[in-house]
């Protein structure tokens, strides 16, 4: 990172008493970043649920669906709480506007939370199975939209660090959503059945990290808000947690005994009253450790005797989830920082004007 900073020229610009040109997002912490997080969790979870359902992993599907439904509901709650006039939340469905990611998102959220709710409800209670199935499928479709529209939501603003990050932010959010949903489902699912969740988490963590790096690399001066101040600290924490979580997920996955291919029941029916078949007993921690690099052999003795997957998976999941939460906080804070310093608004725009108006590289237009 230090290397990249060096290539950013020191910004010289004029401003009005150093006041921001644009308004910083007014969205609050923790409401907004948690909503972004939960939306991601819910979206990706419903995809995992759909995948699990399609692949006959009922236990996994149950966890995923319940996670999706709960996080959608919690997210919607946070969204309503964030409104200046919460009693008017239904006005979100007053119009449908493709130009408004929030309008689109509201409709997605409405559909998504409805479907995940139905699906989870049906799954839990066993009622209305057909509707539940349809809702499952629907949730699988709305899920990815749910997880990525929020990137457009933030990018479709005048906030420099967001708007200019509009290429990578969807991937950052998608990765983060996968990682966190995988993590959540991992936590809610017996390790033996959580394989896809772990893998999803791993891929997500990788995507999140890669997208974040790419974005910062491309943004040039506008990467500063992601690197400096509270946003920078949060972003670094997010990285660390995600990388750690991803690594642990990889470990857990490495330690996993392939679960027997679940048999698809004649009629897909899923109920907690009839638990999914238990997976084969996983290997013990010492067994895993034997194949691990030396450093990991130093794991505390308390872990001995516990199922390695459970411990690794649990820690990994927590790290990934925390990482995803941090990512969203970091993004919000970076956006705010970039809005509050007029440099990030003025300098890129001034460069644009200069490039357009004259080949002369010095900033500032020639007065007419």
């Amino acid at each position, binding site marked *: 990172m230090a290397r990249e900073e060096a290539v950013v020229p020191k910004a010289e610009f004029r401003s*009005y008493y150093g006041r921001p040109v644009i308004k910083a997002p007014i969205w609050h912490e923790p409401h907004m970043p948690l909503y972004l997080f939960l939306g991601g969790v819910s979206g990706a979870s419903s995809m995992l649920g759909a*995948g699990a359902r399609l692949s006959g992993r009922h236990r996994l599907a149950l966890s995923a669906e319940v996670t999706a439904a709960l996080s959608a509901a919690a997210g919607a709650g946070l969204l309503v709480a964030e409104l*200046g006039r919460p009693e008017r939340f239904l*006005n979100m469905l007053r*119009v449908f506007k493709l*130009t408004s990611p929030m309008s689109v998102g509201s409709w997605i959220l409405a559909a998504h939370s409805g479907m995940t709710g139905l699906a989870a409800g049906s799954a839990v209670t066993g009622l209305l199975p057909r509707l539940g199935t349809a809702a499952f499928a629907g949730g699988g479709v709305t*899920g990815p939209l749910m997880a990525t529209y929020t990137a457009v939501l933030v*990018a*479709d603003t005048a906030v420099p660090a967001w708007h200019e990050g509009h290429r990578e932010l969807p991937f950052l959010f998608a990765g983060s959503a996968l990682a966190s949903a995988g993590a959540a489902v991992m936590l809610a699912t017996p390790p033996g059945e959580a394989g896809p969740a772990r893998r999803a988490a791993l*891929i997500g963590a990788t995507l999140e990290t890669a997208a974040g790096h790419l974005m910062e690399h491309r943004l040039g001066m506008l990467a500063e808000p992601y690197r400096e101040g509270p946003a920078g600290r949060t972003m670094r924490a997010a990285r660390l947690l995600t990388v750690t979580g991803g690594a642990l997920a990889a470990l857990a996955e490495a330690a996993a005994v392939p679960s027997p291919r679940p048999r698809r029941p004649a009629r897909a029916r899923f109920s907690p009253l009839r638990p999914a078949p238990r997976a084969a007993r996983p290997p013990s921690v010492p067994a895993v450790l034997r194949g691990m690099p030396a450093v990991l052999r130093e794991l505390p003795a308390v872990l001995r005797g516990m199922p390695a997957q459970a411990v690794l998976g649990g820690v990994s999941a927590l790290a990934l989830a925390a990482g995803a939460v941090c990512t969203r906080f970091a993004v919000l804070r970076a956006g705010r920082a970039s809005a509050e310093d007029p440099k990030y608004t003025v300098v890129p725009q001034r460069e644009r004007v200069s490039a357009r108006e004259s080949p002369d590289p010095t900033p500032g237009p020639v007065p007419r």
Partner: protein
Amino acid sequence: MAERMGFFTDTSVCIGCKACEVACKEWNDVPDDGFLFRATSYDNTGGLGADTWRHVAFVEQFTRQGDSWLMASDVCKHCTHAACLDVCPTGALFRTEFDTVVVQPDVCNGCGYCVPACPYGVIDRRRDDGRAWKCTMCYDRLRGGLEPACAKACPTDSIQFGPLEELRARAGERLDTLHGAGVAEARLYGESPADGVGGDGAFFLLLDEPEVYGLPPDPVVTTRDLPRMWAFAGTAALSMAAAVALSFARRA
């Protein structure tokens, strides 16, 4: 739709009296914006916001080249391509028959999306009220055939109201006059339909670079890039689907 109406704010004749700020508040019942001594020349309201819909900037420039005290009354630009309007999820913001952009306070639910969307930092959410507010170009007055309160009050006609095309012509003439008088630094801001917001319904004649007045030098409506954003998001969504599929793929 009626003719497009607009503001032409000629800051070269602004005397910084702030009548526009007060007249606006009196007509629109805008609350006070706090009582803070900012020590920024004679500007103590800081900038446009939910409780300040006209704002007069004061810039003291005392250099060897000469002395000047720039004053400029800022206002919502009523963009041709208005980000606030584009992103509003409730339809609280709408485009009027005068081609102005107005918030309907009976609809706004205070989602706050318009706030960071505006490339000029105009619209803001009122803290205790929870809704977003900004200049309406006195929509109610316009519907009654009256001119907006600020333009009516302006003692030196720095704020001119009228059909946008007329104002653009007038502004061009004024610019020529000033250039002819040797005021080389005079320039129009926001008058060009070719700019990043498709031209402003409220445009300005400035005597220095826009950022000196707190205005963005090259504003672009964020939704101009929205199709691309959706495309990226779609790709990301597909990637997600692929990733999930991959996760469920049987291990080799």
